């Protein structure tokens, strides 16, 4: 009955770190701040959930007595992190206390009965196998554009569109929209599949993928109310986000004939410099375009103003347009290998489209509404 096992610190820490990312940070329901530990024959299984998201993972263990218990996640993580890279021994004592021993250190953590820990749903039959590298890149290039405004419920996630021969991901916060598309064979899929992935699930999935390397594919499945992403021995479960994602195709500009092309690093640095004196609240900067030339302006009532001139390729009429500098930098930070970026504009009131000058394996498009300045 009294679980007892030994695990390697380095192997356990990785899993604990992931689990703690999902465990509840608030203390309203104490059991949700705990991580469920289950020792089976040769393995330790970890589970964490905040009822929105759940993670099941595990690591090899030498199990003396099988069993299960829950431990406060944050404390356990801190303890394990502080220990030397050695074997750590766990033993459940009376009243759900858990003794953690490593070399000459010993801790006694107040746990809770496993019976109170919510049961996690089981993954149904898998629907598709998604290449991990592709999804990592897609999350990176769209995740930042997801809205954090709780009132805009359906924008609190990204749309994942799976087709047998392509994957598409779109995110928007109502001010800008990031869309990335990749032609790739999606195994196991014979029909189109549309799901909304909540913002937090995107973040944790990204963490999971960067831990597991790009190698192992993602086995994706879903039921009525959950999405399941299983990567190697770990599985991330997310509640589905229901609702109608906006018609993203309708906002992709079609008549943006004024095209500017600039060196990515150059324009990013210039924007970062000019942004230093932009109004802190609005984050507005003004771009002024003339033949072969881009001028960037900012001004803040409190601190002063900034101005920078860049040589760019631009051949259309003079125009000026305002943008939130952070929105531009978000794109420039993840656009990828392409040396040059392109900005396609219509007029000062219509959305601008940004894209890498040369597409890599993904087709990446970023649409931003201007600011009125």
């Amino acid at each position, binding site marked *: 009955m009294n679980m007892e096992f030994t695990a390697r610190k380095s192997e356990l820490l990785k899993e604990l770190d992931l689990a703690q990312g999902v465990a509840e940070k608030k203390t309203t329901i104490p059991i949700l701040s705990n991580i469920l530990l289950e020792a089976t024959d040769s393995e330790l299984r970890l589970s964490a959930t905040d009822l929105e998201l759940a993670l099941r993972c595990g690591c090899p263990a030498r199990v003396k007595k099988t069993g299960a218990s829950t431990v406060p996640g944050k404390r356990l993580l801190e303890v394990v992190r502080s220990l030397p890279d050695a074997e750590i021994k766990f033993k459940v004592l009376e009243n759900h206390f858990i003794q953690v021993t490593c070399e000459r250190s010993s801790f006694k953590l107040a746990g809770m009965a496993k019976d109170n820990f919510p049961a996690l749903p089981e993954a149904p039959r898998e629907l598709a196998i998604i290449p991990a590298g592709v999804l990592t890149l897609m999350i990176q290039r769209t995740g930042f554009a997801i809205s954090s405004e709780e009132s805009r419920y359906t924008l609190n996630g990204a749309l994942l569109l799976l087709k047998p021969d392509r994957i598409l991901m779109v995110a928007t916060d109502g001010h800008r929209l990031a869309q990335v598309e990749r032609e790739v064979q999606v195994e196991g899929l014979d029909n189109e599949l549309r799901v909304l992935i909540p913002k937090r699930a995107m973040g944790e999935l990204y963490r999971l993928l960067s831990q597991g390397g790009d190698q192992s594919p993602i086995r994706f499945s879903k039921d009525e109310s959950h999405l399941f992403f299983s990567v190697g021995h770990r599985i991330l479960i997310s509640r589905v986000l229901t609702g109608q994602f906006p018609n993203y195709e309708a906002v992709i500009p079609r008549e943006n004939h004024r095209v500017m092309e600039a060196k990515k690093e150059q324009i990013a640095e210039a924007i970062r410099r000019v942004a230093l004196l932009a109004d802190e609240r609005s984050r507005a900067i003004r771009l002024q375009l003339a033949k072969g030339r881009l001028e960037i302006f900012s001004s803040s009532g409190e601190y002063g103003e900034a101005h920078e001139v860049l040589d760019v390729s631009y051949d259309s009429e003079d125009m000026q347009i305002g943008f939130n500098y952070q929105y531009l930098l978000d794109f420039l930070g993840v656009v990828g290998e392409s040396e040059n970026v392109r900005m396609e504009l219509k007029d000062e009131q219509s959305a601008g489209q940004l894209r890498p000058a040369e597409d890599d394996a993904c087709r990446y498009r970023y649409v931003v509404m201007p*600011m009125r300045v």
Partner: protein
Amino acid sequence: MPNEALHPASTFRQILHVDMDAFYVSVEELENPSLRGKAVIVGGDPDRRGVVAAASYEARKFGVHSAQPLHTARRLCPHAIFLQGHYEKYREYSRAIYAILGEMTPLVEMVSVDEAYLDMTGCERLHGPLLAAADSLVRKIKQRTGLNCSVGASTSCLVSKIASDQAKPHGLLYVVPGSEAQFLAPLPVRRMPGIGRVTEPRLRALGIETIGDLQRLNPEELKSHFGRFGEWLYLRARGKDLNERIEANGPQSISHETTFETDTCDREELERTLSYLAQRVGRRLREHQIFARTVGLKLRYADFQTFTRDISLREPTNVDSVIYEHVRHLFHCTFNPQWKVRLLGVRVSKLETTAFQTSLLDAAQTAKISQLLKAADQVRKRYGFDALQMARSLDPKKN
């Protein structure tokens, strides 16, 4: 206070209060010189319900004053010429005046179309001593607009306002720094802004008739009678107002309201009116090229119970239909159909004059509506506001 922080050398502030003389009537006279020297009342048809918006000095001799019911005005001055009023014209003149004031100092607060405070602190090198600056301002306004104004000059907004009132019509009154209390002393308490129908009788009961009487009371006595308000009275009686500040940020809000000819609880009519007012407000926003982040409703029932409600928008707007949609929502949440409504008002505030982010998902529609409104505004400029309206504000019975 920020203005003093900027000019640590000056020991007191220099405030002008500019008040146009019988503004609406004077504009009417400029446009139609035959009205000159006659009793003219702007406010509309005296057979209908409404109040006097402005009266010429000739009409005032008969006891007519603004905010008076029109039928009373007609009884007092039956030979007066009653005009509907050309509010677009008044605004045009008001803008011209604002431009002139802006040449004096950047700290100009227009408190209404015909009244403004100017903070002239630190402007001596530009315009000379305060009195000289005020004098040249009065001349400039007369020369460039043909209108007369009265100006009060002193160390505070409060005293300047009372001074301009004392100087009317077409006068200039300078209260020398240090003599504020002396200047106020002989005036009846009613002249003090903030003392009205409620406070005046209470003061009279204490034997206080003039501001001088008020000055003789110590702060404890005033506090025992009026609480916190007593402290305020104590300072005000000496020409001091610690809270006054000149807001040079243009208008803080834009509103339109209307009093019904007869009180009504007809939902159709009320919504129609809201739609009309929303368009009025929207147009003003576009005229100033600004956008509002908050939309508000004012609802006054027949018994004068008044409710105001505000709602914040996700994105600032100057679109009539968006304003209407929100104010209608507020109306639905507030209106009790068992009570008759006397007055409705639509007000927008949190006006966005700096940069703001526009929205992506309904961008195409917003662009279309903006074009439409631009065209509508051009038509209205030519043929008057009522030439073109949203169908919602039209009365099916009349059309």
